[in-house]
């Protein structure tokens, strides 16, 4: 990007959240209006040409890494894949803030620890079933389970859904749409051996049953995934699992014990 200084140059008013932790406020910058400009371009321009102390996070710039998500005019978005022209309001102004529902480290950078800790709490981690000597397990693409796993698998952990979720905002214990979506893809993956552990993990007080199916996660997911559907799947499977354990307590007693 080059610095623009022609006399007829148009400018965009960009209000950016500045501060650390709970303290801070909006600061407004005039950024040159350029063709095919993304929100990330605006933020980068400010950091490179106006205020080098502006802190933000990005990596790939092409919608693959999931690190540049921010609140743009109150909506969580990947800033690298959001064109300025498509979202500026009638006054031509923009408000950019750090992702909602996560603690702010500085300016536009949030602390993602809470978000990823919840993935682990949801057991949304791979539970291997084979050693390297046993080779790769064949995966049939035709089963209903595999299709459910595939539908949920393209998540890149950007936390847009987590920022969009009103249940996360009002119930900090709630594991959130991303962690539960990954848990659902693993429940349906034949290579994962942690089905019972996952179903137990998402059945607790912050688990999938807290979802009110408001579907903000689905509405704002840049990859067009549907975490609400994944959570509905988890609600079904955990209910069956809990009722089976209720009818046959010995079944639950044996879980997790070495074969």
């Amino acid at each position: 990007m080059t610095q623009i200084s022609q006399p007829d140059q148009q400018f965009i008013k960009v209000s950016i959240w500045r501060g650390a932790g709970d303290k801070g406020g909006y600061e407004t910058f005039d950024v040159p209006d350029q063709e095919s400009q993304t929100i990330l371009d605006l933020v980068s321009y400010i950091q490179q040409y106006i205020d080098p102390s502006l802190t933000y996070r990005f990596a790939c710039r092409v919608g693959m890494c999931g690190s540049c998500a921010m609140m743009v005019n109150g909506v969580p978005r990947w800033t690298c894949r959001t064109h300025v022209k498509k979202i500026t309001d009638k006054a031509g102004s923009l408000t950019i803030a750090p992702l909602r529902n996560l603690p702010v480290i500085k300016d536009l950078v949030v602390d993602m620890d809470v978000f990823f800790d919840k993935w682990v709490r949801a057991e949304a981690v791979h539970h291997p079933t084979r050693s390297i000597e046993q080779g790769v397990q064949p995966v049939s693409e035709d089963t209903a389970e595999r299709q459910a796993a595939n539908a949920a698998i393209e998540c890149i952990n950007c936390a847009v859904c987590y920022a969009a979720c009103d249940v996360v905002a009002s119930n900090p214990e709630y594991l959130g749409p991303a962690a539960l979506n990954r848990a659902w893809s693993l429940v349906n993956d034949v290579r994962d051996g942690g089905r019972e552990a996952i179903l137990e993990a998402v059945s607790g007080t912050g688990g999938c049953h807290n979802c009110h199916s408001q579907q903000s996660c689905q509405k704002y997911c840049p990859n067009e995934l549907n975490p609400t559907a994944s959570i509905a799947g988890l609600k079904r499977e955990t209910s069956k699992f809990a009722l089976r354990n209720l009818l046959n307590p010995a079944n639950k007693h044996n879980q997790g014990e070495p074969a």
Partner: protein
Amino acid sequence: MINARLYIMQRLTALIMAPLVIGHIGVMIYAVQNGLSAEEILGRTQGSYFWAIFYGTFALAVAIHAAIGLRAILHEWVRLDGMVLNLVCWAIAAGLAGLGLQAVYSVTG
């Protein structure tokens, strides 16, 4: 704040309430055909084990269902948590069950 056990309890009580609500509305429509009087209602319900079980089951299902629903609202909007949330929800359930069963006893006893 809602775990699998509470979720299942709320769904099961909803399953119980659905046919009872339909039965209640059906009887209301039938009962008002010839005017509605306390004598007529009490004539049908007093001493009836059927209506005692019908409305007794309904009152208990409401107490459980509503207390779980209010639990989520109290946590998310009033920020109640832990023991306080448990006590308030049990008090709501007990209150609804007490009032409901007392009403059932009044018309069927």
